[in-house]
């Protein structure tokens, strides 16, 4: 019996030990002390409190929030544990009063005991923190020359702005691209904001927050981003158009310059004056001369007459064809660089000496320059009347026909200056007799420039022609070499024809065929042949 009793006791003890061991392994205890974290009112009409539970002691633990309030008797429990989530208490409008103190505690309880949090005193006025602003919208606006970013938003919808119960204030922050630097701006009570200093091609990120009644700032709203487009607006076309127009203009100008390059060349680099007969185009003559060109030449002859009026004719006295040497001419030319008359006819052809004349012409043309009657060109030059410095007989003595008529030869005195060219009065010496010598009467007849022609016409059958002066004997004798009797117009024509036989002509040498006189000329020239029928 006693052994049975002790066995029972032993079993109880064992069980008890087991129970104790079991209990110890589960570590059940009263709950830990919860902690009231914070409370918040988003609109000054309700508020929520959150707590953090302590250890639960291994047992199911419940938490309860109890509060007392100024001007309210008794202790009350939280009206709503659900709406705000776990471990929270939501005070709705009916349970929220402002400008009164709340004293809150949270009690955690389980099977083994309770735990009470510290007391929290609050006034709703002190815990106001609104929700962030809603519907933040960005818009790029074009203003004059620069874009701007227009940010707009709405107040959090649970706040009552309309009645004035809360006064809201906003702030925003902006950052560019991927940088982390925010720029903050305050917006007051306005629900929009204009950002003026925006650069095109950059993406801007904006956030907005708000505050009620000098309470706490809300959290920042969700980010809104917008990139500013690269400027293709009004300005760009302008800046594209200008260079394009400029390029087109340049192209056009270049085109025109190229087309008119000859004119341009003439303008910029005026050609060196060369001997030329007005109305005679050497280019034309060089190519196969046709009847038309000859006629054209003929038609231009009157011009020559008129043109002659403006300038003086020169009596060039030379003796030898031998003188037609390049060096001679060139030397002469050098010596008398201004000796070319403005109306010099280059008379460089001798019938008999075709090749030579060619040479002479070639030579002549090199050293002689014919300046058409153009005022802006070289001033009319005077020929120096050479008193036959060296008179050597030319090899080609052509027969000299007798002077049929008397006529006038314009004699330019030596040392005449350019002034004389403009003289209206030319001095003429009457040709007394023409045989092989041109004998001049010492008679000074002053004529007007145009009078030269007139006098010619007064003479019977007087026709103009040109004779080469063979030699000059003294002051009153001039020996002419003449080929044939030529009428003024026909003289030109025949001489021209004559001239035409010789090819090629130098383009620079214009002139008329010599009428047979092989006289030497330092400057080529001719005598205007009053006595046309030599």
């Amino acid at each position, binding site marked *: 019996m006693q052994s049975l009793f002790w066995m029972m006791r032993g079993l109880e003890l064992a069980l008890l030990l087991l129970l104790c061991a079991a209990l110890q392994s589960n570590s059940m205890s009263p709950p830990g002390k919860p902690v009231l974290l914070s409370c918040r009112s988003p609109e000054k009409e309700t508020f929520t409190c959150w707590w953090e539970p302590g250890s639960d002691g291994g047992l199911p633990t419940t938490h309860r929030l109890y509060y007392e309030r100024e001007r309210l008797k008794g202790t009350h429990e939280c009206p709503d544990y659900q709406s705000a989530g776990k471990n929270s208490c939501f005070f709705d409008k009916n349970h929220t009063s402002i*400008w009164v103190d709340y004293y809150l505690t949270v009690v955690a309880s389980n099977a083994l005991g309770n735990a009470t949090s510290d*007391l929290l*005193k609050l006034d709703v006025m002190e815990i106001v923190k609104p929700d962030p602003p809603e519907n933040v919208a960005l818009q790029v606006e074009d203003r004059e020359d620069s874009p701007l970013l227009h940010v707009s938003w709405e107040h959090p919808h649970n706040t*009552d702005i309309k*009645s*004035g119960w809360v006064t809201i204030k906003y702030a925003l922050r902006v950052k560019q691209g991927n940088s982390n630097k925010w720029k903050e701006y305050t917006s007051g009570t306005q629900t929009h904001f204009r950002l003026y200093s925006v650069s095109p091609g950059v993406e801007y990120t904006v956030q907005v927050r708000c505050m009620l009644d000098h309470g706490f700032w809300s959290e920042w709203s969700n980010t809104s981003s917008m990139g500013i487009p690269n400027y293709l607006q009004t300005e760009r076309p302008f800046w594209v158009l200008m260079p394009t127009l400029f390029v087109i203009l340049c192209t056009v100008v270049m085109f025109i310059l190229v087309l008119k390059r000859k004119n341009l060349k003439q303008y910029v680099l005026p050609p060196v004056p060369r001997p030329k007969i007005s109305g005679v185009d050497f280019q034309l003559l060089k190519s196969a001369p046709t009847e038309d060109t000859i006629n054209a030449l003929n038609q231009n002859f009157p011009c020559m007459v008129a043109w002659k009026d403006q300038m003086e004719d020169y009596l060039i006295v030379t003796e030898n064809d031998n003188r037609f040497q390049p060096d001679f001419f060139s030397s002469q030319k050098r010596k008398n660089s201004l000796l070319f008359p403005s109306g010099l006819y280059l008379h460089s052809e001798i019938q008999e000496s075709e090749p030579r004349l060619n040479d002479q012409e070639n030579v002549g043309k090199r050293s002689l320059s014919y300046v058409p009657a153009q005022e802006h060109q070289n001033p009319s030059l005077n020929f120096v009347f050479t008193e036959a410095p060296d008179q050597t007989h030319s090899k080609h003595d052509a027969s000299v026909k007798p002077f049929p008529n008397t006529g006038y030869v314009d004699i330019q005195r030596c040392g005449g200056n350019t002034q004389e060219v403009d003289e209206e009065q030319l001095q003429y010496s009457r040709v007394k007799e023409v045989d092989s010598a041109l004998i001049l009467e010492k008679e000074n007849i002053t004529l007007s420039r145009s009078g030269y022609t007139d006098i010619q016409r007064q003479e019977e059958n007087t026709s103009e022609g040109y004779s080469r002066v063979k030699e000059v004997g003294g002051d009153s004798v001039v020996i002419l070499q003449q080929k044939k009797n030529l009428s003024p117009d026909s003289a030109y024509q025949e001489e021209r024809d004559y001239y035409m036989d010789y090819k090629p002509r130098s383009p620079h040498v214009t002139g008329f065929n010599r009428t047979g006189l092989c006289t030497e000329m330092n400057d080529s020239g001719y005598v205007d042949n009053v006595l046309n029928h030599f």
Partner: protein
Amino acid sequence: MEHRKMNGGKVFISVLCVAAVCSAVPVSDLLDRASQRSDTLHALSTLLTHELDSHFPPLGRVIMPRPSMCHTSSLQTPNDKEQALQVSESDLLSLARSLLQAWIDPLTVLSNSANNLPHPAQNSISNKIQELQEHSKSLGDGLDILSGKMGAAAQGISFLPYRGGNDIGHDKISKLTNFHFLLSCFRRDSHKIDSFLKVLRCRAAKMC
């Protein structure tokens, strides 16, 4: 005597001018100005509280049951939005004026105490207290003018005497505690005034 007469004359003229000027200013504008003033007042008091708390966090909201009730707590004021929106305009104005009036003396006490306050930010606090006094005075004057325009009911003011005396304590802790308490009372009342005036402003402007 003459001095007093001169003073009286000055006051009379200034009041006349003010009345003349104010008659030309609409009520909504006056309310706007007043609410701006009250906003400044409340902002200042909030700053002061934060400044005071910065060095004594434990004196914040966790511990520290009120030693007593604020001297203005006897005044019946609306405690939530519904109640506030139901109060008439003249009553709201009267409440605001009463509260403001009640703080003239305590602000003087605070100002005096701030000079000797054992607090690291004592100078700044003292400055702000003086600003509070100025703003409070000008707001009171403005509200007086407003009340003249809003009817007889707005003229009534509740008398809320301050019985705390000039002394806020002897030792450092009690000084700070009492100072803190007074300031928190003022902060609450300034918020009330600000809220009432803003409600009045929105109501007068028909929209906000």
